[in-house]
């Protein structure tokens, strides 16, 4: 018990070094854990300082090519420490909590980034990450928020579509999004109502329940549609054949991390999804952004 306490005291003595250095150049070796966190770091222009990411950091391509610290819910304390990072950015649901506790005890330079599911939240997260990086987050946060808000009124004017988000449909009953999921939040912000009520998270959906819910549109990750054999094969599944979907044939596919990440690209994803759900509607074009 002697060793860690002394080690900590020694480590604490080194801590003032960090903010002092960030004032000049910010942390030089960053580990970024969480897809949206990584996108934010790269959008802020700090991608070159990232030395490793987690397995959910899929965008941009440069982030995907970096060494991986594993799945963000199963982090390795020593692996993270071995990278010699001077900043470890963690998505708020990174884990397991016991491993985070070990990292904390070892004095690892952790920074937990807040969760976001709408424009203001994303802007807050951009500013938070920027501050941790020693950068000015206002331009990026402002741009994301502007883009997001430009969609608020046009989307509100759309007639809500009865939609369902399908996480996977390759085997057994399709896994659909209930409340408190990113998918649910994205459907709501893109002019749809999630017809799945009564549970949180992702659950299998029976054909009977699907018939009762009567969705008009299904939103999925593009690769899931492919794996299931395309929209036609999907609509033949019992759970969809009995719904209005079979007639409307509105199966919408988008890239998963783009659609559900709520990173800096979220406003553009919101616009794309709204367009796909409301084919006839006119929605404003958003300015092309460097980070999308």
């Amino acid at each position: 018990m002697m060793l860690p306490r002394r080690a900590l005291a020694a480590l604490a003595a080194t801590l003032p070094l960090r903010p002092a250095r960030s004032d000049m150049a910010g942390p030089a070796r960053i580990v970024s854990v969480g897809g949206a966190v990584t996108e934010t770091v790269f959008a802020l222009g700090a991608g070159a300082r990232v030395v490793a990411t987690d397995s959910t950091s899929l965008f941009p391509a440069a982030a995907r090519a970096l060494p991986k610290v594993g799945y963000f819910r199963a982090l390795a304390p020593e692996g993270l420490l071995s990278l010699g990072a001077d900043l470890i950015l963690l998505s708020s649901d990174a884990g397991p909590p016991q491993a985070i506790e070990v990292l904390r005890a070892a004095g690892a330079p952790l920074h937990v980034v807040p969760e976001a599911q709408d424009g203001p939240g994303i802007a807050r997260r951009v500013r938070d990450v920027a501050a941790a990086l020693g950068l000015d987050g206002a331009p990026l946060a402002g741009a994301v928020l502007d883009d997001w808000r430009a969609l608020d009124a046009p989307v509100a004017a759309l007639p809500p579509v009865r939609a369902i988000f399908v996480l996977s449909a390759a085997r057994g009953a399709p896994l659909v999004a209930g409340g408190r999921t990113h998918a649910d939040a994205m459907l709501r912000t893109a002019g749809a109502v999630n017809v799945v009520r009564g549970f949180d998270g992702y659950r299998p959906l029976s054909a009977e329940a699907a018939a009762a819910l009567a969705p008009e549109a299904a939103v999925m990750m593009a690769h899931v549609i492919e794996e299931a054999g395309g929209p036609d094969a999907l609509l033949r599944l019992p759970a969809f054949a009995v719904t209005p979907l079979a007639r409307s044939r509105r199966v919408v596919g988008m890239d998963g991390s783009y659609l559900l990440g709520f990173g800096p690209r979220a406003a553009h994803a919101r616009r794309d999804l709204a367009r796909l759900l409301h084919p006839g509607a006119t929605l404003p074009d958003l300015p092309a952004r460097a980070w999308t």
Partner: protein
Amino acid sequence: MSASLAAPLPRERRALALLPLGLLVLAGAMLAGVLLGPARISAAGLFATLADALGLAPLPAEHARDAAVLGVVRAPRVLMAALIGAGLGAAGAAMQGLFRNPLADPGLIGVSAGAALAAVAAIVLGGSLFGAAAGLVGLWLLPLAAFAGGLLATLLMARLGTVGGVASVATLLLAGVAVNALAGALTGVLVFMADDRQVRDITFWTLGSLAGARWAQLPVVLALVGVPLLLLCALARPLNALLLGEAEAFHLGVRVEAVKRLAVVLAAVAVAAGVAFTGLIGFVGLVVPHLVRLGFGADHRLVLPGAALLGGALLVLADLAARSLAAPAELPVGVVTALLGAPFFLWLLRRRGAGA
């Protein structure tokens, strides 16, 4: 004739070497576990950390990271792996002896399935089931639940397996199968209720990991694994008598029912304590006792402490591999032990087939 007996037979000479050898292997494994890993430790960092730990010299700031890796991350982790591996090894040896079955492992007595059920409940239901208690116990919720679940499942099994005051091995085994099936079914219900992310958490938990090892947990593990371990070693003679059979053990003056019950409960406590902090780690309890028996014979006075020492060493090394092979990520340690254990198990089966 008497001369040949008075002189120790080769195996007896080897037996004398078991404990020192086991201690040496364990110490070597632990040393490797502390010194090696994905985070490189410089010699200067090591000596500075040692000097600091011994109170000889304050830790220079440039070695703070080395000291943190050695003292905060690795040392508790290696100690934890040694203790839990020792518990798994000794519990496996005791269960194999008790059930007179070389393929028995602690899973047979329901402890793993029960712990898994409770751990999954903690992951899925978390705060909602345990309410205010969850807030109070925080990081201890899952281990507490898993420990209690493992123990309860074993007690249930022992209860179901006892008919008219007699716990026959066959009935116990069947009761274990029933308890495992029941716990598996209830776990399935919880997995059904779980959302996608919880399912991934459950998956990782069932693969085992020592990544969460902290100093604060060690006294608990030391007590809950160490005490049953010593008591199991004290049961070595009755377990030896059981090698002949239950009736024969009774003829030798062993209180068979009491020994069975005690051994099952002690093994359950030792295993449940390990499972509680690391998740499920397979094959240590199955394979290690066999390794000891292959080299040193079936005498539980050797097999129990030998399996404890070797089990500790094996888990320390498996964890070192788990930390290092996929760095900076980490393999689940249960995957490593299974990768090592499964081929050995197959070899054992074939050897039995050929030898019998």
